């Protein structure tokens, strides 16, 4: 009974996302969509991947990190440098998966190396330490020669921007979504959620806290890295300053806005946060002001206890039950 319901929810998420992807594809390929619309597609996918992966840490593991952009940058630099190196030696269809995997693995390795010492910390202390690691990574990238310093890398092949290659981004979002969903609804995912709900109880039934925390951290870092590689191959350049703590906070905004521990929530919020600032271009100078107000308003509407109670009263599910109840009465 329960199992079916769960599968239905997951399938619904997959289905709606697939439908949206098809719709976007049709709009772009038939030329109905504007260029602005098209240029938003890949950044949106990048944000979705980042939000899904951060949600694993913040939503499911229940730990606050402010260094997600650091993993993104490590993955981006690793993958994009390899891509620059390999360009011309092999077809794109081979090179892209290879460099994405590489970027993801390097980021995951960083996640492991950083995770081992810092995951002993909790709460805001962990948040600060991850923020610190993100900034250290940025500082190091700025000081290394092969990363180009402040000038960054400017010759990353812009494969994803060209033609219909944005479809690759769709595929990546789906892979991220499926992996994260599968993880969450597995033994390992349950252990991770159990740690969030009650660490002490989880420990007492033999769950290895460090292992599962690291697992969540490493998988999240992996996808952040892949998202970074995707970002680099869309924009064609990397700049260490674009992966600072502000970027980490932006991802966190998406996760919290969508609801911690809600996978479809992350997807929807990524959409909102990517699209709203562009839609608000009509406000020109007042763009960011309006954005700030929208952010605060959405947050209050979405998360305040009073609004939640109100929503529960008027929820679609409740209405549906009411209608069904009446019908049943009539039949009786």
């Amino acid at each position, binding site marked *: 009974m329960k199992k079916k319901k769960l599968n239905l929810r997951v399938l619904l*998420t997959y289905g709606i996302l697939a439908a949206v992807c098809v719709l976007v594809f049709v709009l772009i390929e038939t030329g109905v969509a504007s260029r602005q619309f098209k*240029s938003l597609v890949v950044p949106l996918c990048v944000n979705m991947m980042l939000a899904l992966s951060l949600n694993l840490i913040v939503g499911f593991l229940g730990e606050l990190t402010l260094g997600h952009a650091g993993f993104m940058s490590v993955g981006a630099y690793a993958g994009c440098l390899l891509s620059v190196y390999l360009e011309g030696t092999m077809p794109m269809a081979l090179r892209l998966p290879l460099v994405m995997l590489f970027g993801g693995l390097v980021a995951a390795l960083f996640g492991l190396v950083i995770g081992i010492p810092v995951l002993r910390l909790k709460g805001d202390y962990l948040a600060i330490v991850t923020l610190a690691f993100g900034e250290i990574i940025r500082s190091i990238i*700025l000081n290394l020669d092969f990363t180009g310093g402040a*000038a960054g890398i400017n010759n990353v092949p812009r494969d994803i921007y060209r033609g219909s290659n944005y479809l690759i981004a769709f595929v990546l979002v789906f892979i991220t979504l499926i992996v994260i969903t599968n993880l969450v609804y597995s033994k390992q995912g349950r252990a991770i959620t159990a740690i969030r709900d009650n660490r002490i109880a989880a420990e007492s039934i033999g769950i290895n806290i460090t292992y599962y925390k690291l697992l969540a951290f490493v998988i999240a870092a992996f996808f952040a890295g892949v998202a970074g590689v995707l*970002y680099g191959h869309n924009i064609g350049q990397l700049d260490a300053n674009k992966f600072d703590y502000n970027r980490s906070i932006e991802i966190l905004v998406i996760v919290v806005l969508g609801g911690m521990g809600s996978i479809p929530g992350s997807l929807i919020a990524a*959409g909102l946060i990517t699209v709203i600032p562009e839609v608000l271009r009509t406000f020109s100078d007042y763009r960011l002001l309006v954005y700030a107000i929208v952010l605060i308003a959405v947050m209050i509407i979405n998360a305040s206890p009073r609004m939640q109670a109100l929503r529960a009263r008027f929820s679609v599910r409740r209405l549906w039950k009411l209608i069904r109840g009446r019908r049943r009465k009539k039949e009786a």
Partner: protein
Amino acid sequence: MKKAICMLLVCALLSLCLVGCGNDGNSDYTLVIGGIGPTTGVAATYGTAVKNGAQLAVNEINAAGGINGMQIKYLFEDDQHNPETAVNAYNTLMDKGMQILMGTVTSKPCIAVAEVAREDNIFQITPSGSAVDCIKYDNAFRICFNDPDQGTASAQYIKQQNLAQKIAIIYDKSDVYSTGITEKFEAKAGELGLNIVAKEAFTSSSATDFSAQLQNIKNADADLVFLPIYYEAAAYILTQSKSAGLETKFFGCDGLDGVIDQLGEQNAAAAEGVMLLTPFVATAEDAKTKKFSQDYKAAYGEMPNQFAADAYDAIYTIKAACEKANVKGDMSVSDICNALKAAMLQIEIDGLTGKMTWSANGEPNKEPKAMKIVNGIYEAM
């Protein structure tokens, strides 16, 4: 169910920007020039200056009858100094029928946009994107100097005038402009036998307190500090060096222009004696600069900086090139670009930032002027 509604909402928003950007069709009598730059975020000063400087030029040209009889429609989009946003801004402008691109203001976004602009073969002229890669394609030109040239020129000038024996550098490690100049400056200085005794860095996240850097320079006993940075950070350095009792000469590049206004009356003493190589100073006495500065101040309440001047010149350069190439309203974006590319090599502009001609690589040929701040105003050296 709630999810479905939310997803629909996102779709609705997406389609809103789908519908919102139709072309208004009849562009026979207008020439659409698009501008891109940061008007919000930490680099907002530069973008705003460019936006305003160009607007002044557009107003003047439109009042005088436009370009080849066409009025200019000038559109400006914010990029928050972010390459991704800059590409979005570019595409938004393309949706709105942009025919010529004046931008972008900052280097990294400019490089990203240059890639896309090349694919569209749209004519691009950046007022202030100074990294070499900003104009690596043949459809792109620039008004400002590029970073390496400034570094080389500065070292040469210091050597020629024999300004210093021991040179210290303070540069912004996180900024392309600053690292670009510094790199070439060091190379040239080495070549010329100038002695660099200290090289101190800061980053965008520590750009207000310079006590340690200044102390290091003091320890190194430098007699000139080279500042390949923008005037905001320079203002901090100059005021703090005064209170730290550091008595060296200061030498900067075009980014330093604007430092007098930044310092304001109360800190004016800190700017005394600062030297810079720049194509433009807002307080210059020639009629053109005077009028520009007055108009700018009247319209926007503050003195223009070099960015505003570059943008002003960029618009007039577009005008001159369009007239030379006899650009017509019914020409396609790509045709305009091809015509302008040829015309750019033939025109000569006597702008706010000096007399300019262009070579095929898109770089302007113009002479920087060496200036020194004396009694609160610039004096030619």
